[in-house]
């Protein structure tokens, strides 16, 4: 999501711009009274701004369209635009939109053809380039952020990447595209690595591994920009050497866990069997009814499983996947042309 606090509508109050997982940019207007109701940022025709995939609120399902594709654009994979920042790309005094693609490494632009107070966004996405090539963030785009990294008064673009969210392939990183243009014409240079993609495989939470969402500020007041990153850490605690008694206890607990799983599975199978042959709506209604009937039984089984897991986990620790927010303190204030030092 990565909310951006910015005076989007030029009324003197900060607003919130955010891309969210429905595939569109949203706006929360700020006023002296506080935050207004979130609204979608629409194009000049009143249509939703999307890539290809989007959540269809009317049909209550995922949907797809090609209506916003850049002319002649033949993406290898369809896009889902889940992150957004407002940036004046052409120095005309109004905000355009920079949109990150969750499904690929691409970043797109929607030009504001109106004004700061009456924006009119183009009906097509434009592919954003860096160093003369379409941006292709390794690991697909988790979020886009703006930062004046080199202090030249121009907004640079930082991208956090997703990486392989569950598997063993590389995780996400953080990448920077310096603005080598001007205030009247933003141009991004070649990609630099601020944080290398995670290779995973740690035995303890040591860094954000997937779904990296960065932001920047002088956290410690030493005059340079530090980086905060939200994301999931993946790790596998080392195996524990068990005593004979513990091994026996593990066997008992695993049997208990299997029995509880079987009981839960039996309830769910019975519900599925009871809705078989019904049309979609009737099946959904009957399923809700039966789940309500079995709510207490399922809840009790869940609680028993938690008790078993709590005792079992220290003896047989499983793979972990938990979300945190990390601070990366910037230790060096060096010349701008010194290459990035990925960790």
């Amino acid at each position, binding site marked *: 999501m*990565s909310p951006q*606090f910015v005076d989007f509508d030029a009324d003197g109050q900060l607003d919130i711009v955010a891309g969210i997982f429905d595939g569109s940019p949203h706006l929360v207007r700020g006023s002296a009274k506080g935050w207004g109701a979130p609204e979608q940022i629409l194009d000049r025709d009143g249509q939703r701004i999307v890539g290809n995939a989007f959540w269809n609120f009317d049909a209550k399902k995922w949907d797809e369209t090609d209506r916003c594709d850049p002319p002649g654009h033949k993406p290898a994979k369809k896009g889902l635009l889940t992150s957004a920042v407002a940036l004046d790309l052409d120095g005309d005094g109004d905000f355009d939109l920079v949109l990150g693609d969750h499904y690929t490494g691409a970043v797109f632009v929607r030009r504001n053809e109106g004004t700061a107070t009456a924006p009119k966004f183009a009906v097509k996405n434009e592919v954003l380039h860096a160093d003369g090539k379409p941006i292709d963030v390794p690991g697909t785009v988790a979020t886009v952020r703006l930062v004046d*990294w080199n202090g030249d008064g121009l907004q640079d673009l930082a991208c956090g990447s997703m990486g392989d969210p569950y598997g063993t392939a590389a995780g996400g990183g953080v990448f920077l595209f310096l603005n080598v243009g001007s205030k009247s014409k933003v141009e991004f240079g070649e990609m630099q690595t601020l944080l290398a993609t995670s290779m995973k495989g740690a035995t303890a939470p040591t860094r954000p591994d997937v779904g990296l969402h960065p932001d920047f500020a002088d956290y410690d007041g030493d005059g340079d920009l530090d980086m905060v990153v*939200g994301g999931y850490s993946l790790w596998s605690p080392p195996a524990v050497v068990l005593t004979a008694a513990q091994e026996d206890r593990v066997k008992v607990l695993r049997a208990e866990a299997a029995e509880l799983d079987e009981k839960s599975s039996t309830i769910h199978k019975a519900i599925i069997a009871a809705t078989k042959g019904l049309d979609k709506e009737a099946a959904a209604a009957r399923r809700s009814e039966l789940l309500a009937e079995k709510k207490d039984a399922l809840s009790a089984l869940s609680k028993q499983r938690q008790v078993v897991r709590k005792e079992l986990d220290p003896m047989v620790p499983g793979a972990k996947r*938990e979300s*945190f927010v990390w601070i990366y303190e910037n230790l060096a204030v060096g010349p701008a042309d010194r290459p990035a030092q990925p960790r």
Partner: protein
Amino acid sequence: MRLHDLSLLVCAALAVAQSPNFAPPVRLMAGEVHLGEARLYPSPVFHDLNGDGAADIVVGDLRGHLTVAHRKGASSPAVYASEEKVLGADGKILDLQNW
């Protein structure tokens, strides 16, 4: 929501030409728990939400919720209070619903 807060967001006034040499990362705390723990894809941003001159951390997530961990005092390293839901002008939880 005041415009002067923007300076804290990007820290442009303080930024100087630099290259990254980051210390090993440290998990931030909010009150007694890890900031962003148990959230779906937490997305933190620095922003002085209460206008006290210190950059708080606002955390969005995949569900479309926003929380804020207010920075307590000016100590270094920073100390953050427990996360609170960000509310709208109507007093209800600000919710950018996804689906």
